[in-house]
C-alpha cells in the first residue's frame, strides 16, 4: 500500500437536489502505483468525471479517504488545495479549456509561471513541450486558430509543464476524429511515461482504454476491474 501514489478507499459522493439525492460514487476503491496508467470506462453520468474531479482536488466528497502522493485529500483544507493542484496534478479535459486570449505557448507556460517558475524558464519549458507534442510550428497561434487535435495536444503539453506526478484526463479524445484520437493516445501514453507520471483516463473509447495498464468500468457507483 505504501508504494501507491493514488489511493481511494470507500469513496462516497452524493449530489443533492431539491427532488432527490443522487448517489454517484457508492464506495470506490482504487490503488495506483507511480508511473502506471489506468482507464475508467462507463456510461454517461456514471461518475467518471466526478471521480477525476475528486482525485484532482476540484471537488469534495462525502466520505472515504483519498490520498495522492503525500496529500490526504480528506483532511486537506480549501486553502491547501490550490497548491496540491498546481504541484501534483495535470488536467486534460474533453474540451481543451485553453485560455482564448493567450497563444499556445503562453497557455502551456502559464501554469509554470503561476507556480513561481521564472518567466524565461517557464517559456523555455513550454517551448520544449510544444515541440514534443508536435506543436512547435503553431506555438504562437491562438486557440481559435488551432484545429481540435492541435488544441488537445496543446492542452496535454500544458498538463505536463509542471512535471506533475498525476495526470487526469477526462475524455481527451471525445471530441476528435479517429486520426487525431490516435495521435492523442500516443501522446497520452508516451509523454507521461517520459516524465514518470501516473495517468487516470476516463473515456468511452475502448481503444484508448485498452492502452492503459489497468482498466476499470464504473457502474452503480463502484469500480469494476475489466
Amino acid at each position, binding site marked *: 500500500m505504501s508504494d501507491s501514489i493514488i489511493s481511494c478507499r470507500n469513496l462516497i459522493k452524493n449530489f443533492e437536489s431539491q427532488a432527490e439525492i443522487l448517489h454517484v460514487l457508492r464506495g470506490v476503491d482504487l490503488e495506483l502505483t507511480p508511473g502506471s496508467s489506468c482507464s475508467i470506462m462507463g456510461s454517461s453520468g456514471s461518475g467518471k468525471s466526478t471521480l477525476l474531479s475528486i482525485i484532482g482536488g*476540484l471537488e469534495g466528497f462525502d466520505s472515504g479517504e483519498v490520498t495522492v502522493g503525500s496529500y490526504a485529500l480528506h483532511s486537506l483544507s480549501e*486553502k491547501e488545495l*490550490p497548491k496540491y493542484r*498546481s504541484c501534483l496534478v495535470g488536467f486534460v*479535459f474533453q474540451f481543451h479549456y485553453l*485560455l482564448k486570449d493567450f497563444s499556445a505557448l503562453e497557455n502551456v507556460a*502559464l*501554469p509554470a509561471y503561476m507556480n*513561481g517558475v521564472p*518567466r524565461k524558464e517557464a517559456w523555455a519549458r513550454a517551448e520544449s513541450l510544444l515541440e514534443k507534442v508536435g506543436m512547435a510550428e503553431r506555438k504562437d497561434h491562438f486557440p481559435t486558430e488551432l484545429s481540435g487535435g492541435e488544441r488537445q495536444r496543446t492542452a496535454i503539453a500544458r498538463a505536463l509543464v509542471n512535471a506533475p506526478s498525476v495526470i487526469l484526463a477526462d475524455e481527451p479524445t471525445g471530441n476528435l476524429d479517429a486520426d487525431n484520437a490516435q495521435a492523442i493516445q500516443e501522446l497520452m501514453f508516451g509523454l507521461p511515461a517520459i516524465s514518470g507520471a501516473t495517468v487516470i483516463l476516463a473515456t468511452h473509447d475502448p481503444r484508448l482504454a485498452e492502452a492503459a495498464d489497468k482498466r476499470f468500468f464504473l457502474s452503480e457507483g463502484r469500480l469494476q476491474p475489466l
Partner: protein
Amino acid sequence: MTFGASFFIAARSLLGRKRTGGMAGAILGIGISLVPIVLVLIVSDGMIEGITRRYMETKTYHLQVAAPDSMAGSDAEKGRVALSAVPGVQAAYIEKNGSGVVVSAEASNAVMLRSVSPEFFVDPGVSQYLRLIEGKARPEGKRDIVLGSSLASVLHVKLGDSLTVITPNQQNEFTAGGIGADFSGYAPRLSFFKVTGIVSAGYRDLDALWAFISPEAGERLLNYPSSYSFFGIKVADPYSNSLGSIKESVSGAMESLYPDWFDPYLTRTWPEVERSLYRSFGTTKSMLLFIMGIALVVAAVNLGSSLSTFVVEHSMDIAVLRGMGATDSAIRQIFVGAGFITGGLGTILGILAGLILSLNVNFLISGIEWIANIFDSGLAYIKGQPSVALKLLDPEYYLEKIPISIDFAQIALIAALSIALSAVVSLIPARKASRISVQELIRKS
C-alpha cells in the same frame, strides 16, 4: 502566484486579441471623465494666477503698510527709502487712493483715484501687466489723468478729452443718502483733468476701476477721511514662504522709524489685502473640481460594471486558472490588476488629452468662435439681419487670453486618485471572480 504572473494574465486578458468592447469603453470612460478635470484645473489655475498676478503687480502690491493720511511727502519718502533697504524687498512705493466720481461729457462713473510714486510705472511687474493703450502711462502734470481702458470706454472719452473729478472736501465727506438723510455736510470738490493716457491690465474689473493722477494732484485731492495712504512693497517671489518673514522685517523697520503710530497689524501681505477675492477664486475652483470629480466617480463605477461583465465573460478562463492551482487571492489579484490597468490606461489617455486641450485652449476657443461666427453670419445673411460677433470668453468679464498654468503635482495627484479609484471599484468583481466554482463551470460546459 507572483505579481508578475497576475499582471501578465490581467494585461493579456484585457489587451489580448479577444478583448471586449466593454473594457475599451471603460478605459474611454475614465479618460473622458479626466479631460474636463485636467482642463478645469489648468484653466482655472491659469485664470486665477493671471488675475492674481495682475492684482498683486498693479493694485495690491506684494505687501502693504498702511500709513496715516497726515504723513507729509518728505516723511513718506524717508519711509519708502527705509523699506527699500529691508532685506528681501525689491522696491517700495508710496500710494494714496480714494473714491471719487468721474464725469465726462456723456457719462459719469465711480472710480478709485490712485496717486502713485512715479517709479511705480517702471516697476517690472507693473510694466509686464499694465499695457499702455494710448498716450502716456504716467500722469505727470497736476491736471493729467490716466484711465483704465474699460473706464474710458464707459465714459466715452479719448486722449485729450476733459473730465471733471468729484471728490469730498477735506472735512466733509459723502454720507450715505436716503430719504431723510442729512446732507448738511455735503460739499464736493470739483477738479478738472485732461485724459493723457489710457492703460489696461487685461482684466475688466481692474480696467473699470482706475484713474491715475499725479502725486501732486493726489496731495491736493486725496486728503479726506476715507482716503487711504500706504507703502506698496514688491519682493522677488510673492508666492514664496519667505513673504511672512519679509513682512516681519518690514514691520520691524517701520516700528523703529515710526514708533508713534505704527502697529504690526498695519502690514498686510497680498492674500490678506484681497482675502475674500482669492478665497472666492479658490472656492469656485474647488466646486468645479468637485463637480468634475463626480464624473470620474461615475466613470469608475462604470469600470466596476464593465469588470463584472468581464468576469462573467471570462468565467471559464477563471475556472481553468483555478484548476491550474490559482488561489482565491491570486484570482482577486488578477482582477484588481485588470482594474488597475484599465484605470491606468484611461488615466494616461485622459491626462494626455486634457493636457493637449489645455495647452491649446486659446486656439480652441478662437476656433470655436470662428466656426460659430461663420454660422451666425450665414444665418444673419439669410435673415437679412446684421450679424453680431460672438465671443465665448468675453474680455469684459474674463482675461483676454487664458494663461496656461500646469501644476504637475496636482495632475499627478489626480492621476493617482483615478488609478486608485479604479483599483478600489474592481474589488467587488474581483471578489466575485474568486468565488467561481471550477467543477460547476466544467460540468455546465
